[in-house]
């Protein structure tokens, strides 16, 4: 097992190195520069432009910049945002909990509904329920979620006025963030109604973000279950006269869950991509929106730092899933 972990890590480190290179080089290829954007319509003289570029350290050869950047990140420093002039890591940490909370809620919803739907669909294969679930899942899987979000806003916030339009909590509540997770902080604050307000704000964004993972999980669970239900040992169990509940619950489900867990793990990247759109639509103060803003403002250090941290998170989760998988299924440790 240890060699397995080491081997995985051995692959991960050069990959991460590549990620830093890509994050850095890509950003430098962006046309336009932050200094120009700062001046706006007013514009500035060539000399002043050159002077400012120098002040920000953008005038040195790219390789030199990259070298010093690597040294910086080795020391845990991702530089300072050009726009807000604050450390990138600080900005990331203040916004990350919002994205994490939204993603966790979305995954929770996705598993809560996707998993049972998939299991029941597999067990009652060919039934109306099966067809409905698969049809819904296919639609969810094909959904342009930015449009879906708009539709939900029109319906639930616009026409019915059931849910708030945007933000994380009603502005009437004010407390210092402790964990950064609004659902937890609102409980800790002890303010009456704060938690419920946070929940209300969470409903639409998490539904939108959970749409695709939910569909994927339902589909995967169903096909994994079907596969397992066809295996000999399940047939034997059935033949031995075990009740259907036991067969499904004990034997089939346990084995079917392995690929499903992997799929859930792989949704992290999907969630980040979805978060970009969801956060844009719901004005959710998280990482996705921050990245889009930073790209459009050519805030080099923020985009670089954000790319790195997001890639690091995706890679760690993938590693974790790999390890988990290796733990459950020893065979995998010995193949590539």
């Amino acid at each position: 097992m240890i060699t397995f972990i080491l081997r995985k890590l051995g692959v991960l480190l050069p990959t991460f190195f590549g990620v830093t290179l890509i994050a850095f080089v890509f950003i430098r290829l962006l046309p336009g520069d932050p200094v120009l954007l700062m001046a706006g319509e007013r514009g500035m003289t060539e000399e002043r432009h050159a002077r400012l570029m120098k002040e920000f350290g953008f005038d040195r050869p790219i390789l030199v910049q990259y070298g010093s950047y690597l040294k910086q990140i080795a020391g845990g420093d991702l530089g300072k945002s050009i726009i807000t002039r604050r450390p990138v890591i600080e900005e990331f940490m203040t916004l990350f909990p919002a994205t994490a909370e939204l993603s966790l809620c979305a995954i929770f919803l996705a598993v809560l509904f996707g998993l049972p739907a998939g299991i029941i669909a597999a067990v009652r294969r060919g039934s109306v329920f099966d067809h409905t679930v698969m049809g819904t899942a296919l639609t969810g899987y094909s959904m342009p979620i930015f449009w879906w979000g708009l539709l939900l806003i029109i319906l639930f916030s616009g026409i019915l006025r059931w849910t708030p339009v945007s933000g994380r909590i009603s502005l009437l509540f004010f407390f210092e963030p402790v964990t950064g997770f609004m659902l937890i902080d609102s409980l800790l604050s002890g303010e009456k109604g704060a938690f419920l307000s946070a929940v209300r704000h969470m409903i639409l964004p998490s539904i939108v973000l959970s749409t695709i993972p939910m569909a994927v999980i339902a589909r995967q669970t169903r096909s994994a279950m079907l596969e397992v239900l066809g295996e000999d040992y399940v047939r034997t169990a059935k033949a031995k006269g075990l009740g259907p509940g036991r067969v499904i619950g004990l034997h089939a489900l346990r084995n079917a869950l392995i690929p499903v867990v992997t799929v859930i793990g792989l949704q992290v990247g999907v969630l980040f991509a979805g978060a970009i759109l969801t956060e844009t639509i719901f004005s959710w103060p998280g990482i996705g929106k921050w990245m889009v803003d930073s790209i459009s403002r050519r805030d080099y250090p923020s985009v670089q730092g954000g790319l790195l941290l997001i890639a690091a998170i995706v890679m760690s989760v993938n590693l974790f899933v790999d390890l988990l998988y290796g733990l459950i299924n020893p065979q995998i440790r010995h193949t590539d």
Partner: protein
Amino acid sequence: MTDTVAENTEKLDTRQGGRIALLKEFWSYFTENRGAVMGLIFFIAVILVAIFADVLAPHAPNQQYRDAFLQPPFWEEGGSTAFILGTDAVGRDILSRLIHGSRYSLFIGCIVVSIALSVGILLGVTAGYFRGRVDTIIMRLMDIFLAFPSLLLALVLVAILGPSLTNAMIAIAIVQQPHYVRLTRAAVMSEMSRDYVTAARVIGVKRLRLMFVTILPNCMAPLIVQAALSFSSAILDAAALGFLGLGAQPPTPEWGTMLAEAREFILRAWWVVTFPGLAILTTVVAINLMGDGLRDALDPKLKRS
């Protein structure tokens, strides 16, 4: 697609008869799946609409009717049958724009899949065939790409290349091709140990021919399924980029771009928002239905279980 030696030798000399039989088998599996057939029919309809857009569309897609800004669909009050699905903010007919937009979506799908597929196959076959250092380098490179969420990477790429339809397609293709590389590599590796490959080697088939003529055709099944799925996700991603203002640029009647332009009207003119999204959704659903059918037909194991 069974493992018997007899069939493998048949694969080796790729007789026409074998191909046709395989196709027939595939078709009968495919048509068993009603959803897939419906998807196929809808998809063909979309293709026809795209081809005959000029004939079908009642108006030119960019023609602005200055006296008909934001007219609702014909069944709503204030609508007229001249503009069946209403008009947008500068008085362009939405139906005509949707009809012409189908061209862009299909075009995006085709181009993205062709680029991603060809690059992916090239790299994947190379990695799977040669193994060793070449393999490591290619796969590490793909790992790096896969470490970024796809839309984020596409976003950065488009920002670098400049926002346009072409660049959005390039970005999406780049983001998608690692999946093809992985699939191809895995399939090639599993084929490499088969007897027919060894046999071909023994009779002295040249390396390139071995890679692309002997082995590759037997790896196509998963790739075809992947192609169908990535066709639909290319349409979705391009629409998402368009929505964020980084895809096709106005006045191109691309569906995602139409949505982005329509966003400011969500409270006032529901039709500008609803129809482009519906067009995206139905097209993508149809393609995914087809993709599911393809997968089931090409991988009968799952079907039979």
